[in-house]
């Protein structure tokens, strides 16, 4: 799957889980940029992304991402 498509689908998941239609994600977007993205909703996002792409992140990955770009990279690596 193309990176852009993965990013777009991740964006849809963010909008749905955080209940905020205005969210636009770029690789540089981090939790500081989105009000609703806190440590609690982070877990919901992870679980929703795992379900959507039928993948499983490791515990280490969940704690390591600094921004959306890294999250998408992890996702891409599991889809390949």
């Amino acid at each position, binding site marked *: 799957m193309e990176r852009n498509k993965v990013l777009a689908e991740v964006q849809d998941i963010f909008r*749905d889980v955080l209940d905020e239609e205005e969210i636009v994600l770029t690789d540089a977007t981090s939790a500081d940029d989105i009000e609703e993205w806190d440590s609690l909703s982070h877990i*919901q996002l992870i679980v929703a992304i795992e379900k959507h792409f039928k993948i499983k992140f490791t515990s280490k990955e969940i*704690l390591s991402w600094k921004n959306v770009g890294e999250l998408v990279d992890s996702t891409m690596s599991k889809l390949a």
Partner: protein
Amino acid sequence: MKSLKELKRILKQGTEGMPEVKVALLGDTATQLLATALKGEGAARGLAVDLYEGEYSQVEMQVLDPGSEFHSFDASFSIIFQSTHKLLETYSLMKPEARVQLAKERLAFVRTLCESTNGKIIYFTYPEIGDAVFGSYQTKVQSSFIYQTRKLNMGLMELSQEYPQLFLCDLAELQAKYGRDMFFQSNVYVSTEMILSVDALPLVASRVLDIICANRGQFKKCLILDLDNTVWGGVVGDDGWENLQLGHGLGIGKAFTEFQQWVVKLRQRGIIICVCSKNDEAVAREAFEKNPEMVLKLDDIAVFVANWENKADNIRRIQSILNIGFDSMVFLDDNPFERGLVRDSLPEVCVPELPEDPGEYLEFLYSQNLFETASFSEADKDRTKQYQAESNRVSYAGKFTNESDYLKSLGMESAVRGFEPFNIPRVAQLSQRSNQFNLRTVRYTEDQVKQMATDPDCGCLTFTLEDKFGDNGLVCVIILKKQDAETLFIDTWLMSCRVLKRGMEHFTMNTIVEYAKANGFKRIVGEYLPTAKNGMVADHYQNLGFSKVEAAETAQYELNVSSYEEKICHIAKK
């Protein structure tokens, strides 16, 4: 089942105007999302959960310190969530020779919790984790973790009988249904200390709210069944009673037989079973009478309605006979059209979306936990007989033009007793579940009822009602409290709605006045505290000849004992 995401959205819409319930939550793992799920599930059921959430892993500290935030919050329900994972950690750190004490030590803590906490406690059974140290041989080793976990769960169940305020949310059973791999997500746990998976949270919150709602008097009392392809396989009008799929021989009969066994167990527990079917009544009844594979018998059915009319109207008819709220009814029907119709016309009736394959009915119904309860007593078993009698009474009443003549013909008798060991469980149960004919809706536990029974300043009265059609059992509870030397306050007046329009309130009033006279009281004061459900008794005291106490802040009424004229009624003292 709603997802966590949906629960959050419901919560976002606010809980204004909903009744509030104070809930405390303590956990030994991260509970923030459980807190969100609990509040969301509360809002979905029309309850504003006012939640105190303790810092995590402070369970012991908060419980053992009488001055802690937890105790000063004074919740109606305290939810204490201690997880198997943390228990396993404790176990692993113990010296091997001490591990055999694990269950005992935890039970001692739960006992302390019960002794030191006001209000109701919701504690969780421990889902099993096999730590694979002994293999299956663990079942032979007292110090193995599984051995201790099972012993602990058994001990908790015993403790919950000792402490009526202790309710167990059976997480072990819930996990047995859904599996640990669904309940527990190791990557989430390791990175966040959250023990319940995002998918498990709504399930757990729902089970907890089931317990809270049942304790608040909101629970299901009645199961209404369609017949064709719900209770048996096939259409009796087309196939004939002898060709129904039932039992272990024909087609998928086994599925229906096991479903019927479940229904009979519910009836034995005290759930009222009714039939609402599109059929000729004689044809439908014939299947019950003649098919030897039927587990469910006509005797199990309180109200049997089979005709070709609209099912919503038929359920209204059942409701008027039983005199219980629509929100306490469950309707099961295999036909999506009938389900939709009933759901649209009677939104308060619970209409589960039965799976298409009858083989899946039971597992689906198990997952719904439709029949949570906060009490269970022996008297529950007779309820079907009582409602069958009521069904007969309704048709008998049609033959009399004069109500008084009809009441006279019933030959009613009432036994008036105090609170005694044999009736205390029933009194507590009525106190917990009566919503409509309940003047003040003060809920008492069995322990509190026991205390009042021996309190010299309390007058405790119970009433049974029997007539030619049957025994209604204990139907009315009165608690009188001495306000001062001359004044008697009616703390509790509640009655079963089964006995409305029978003159029972007059008989009860006569008895209260008798009690007041015998104990030297000159004045009786009653109070009406309105709730969403007790509008039917708003004018109760005026109707009995009380006059309003104008100075009072609440709706209070008084009666002068010496000027009371005994009410005429057709109930004899037994």
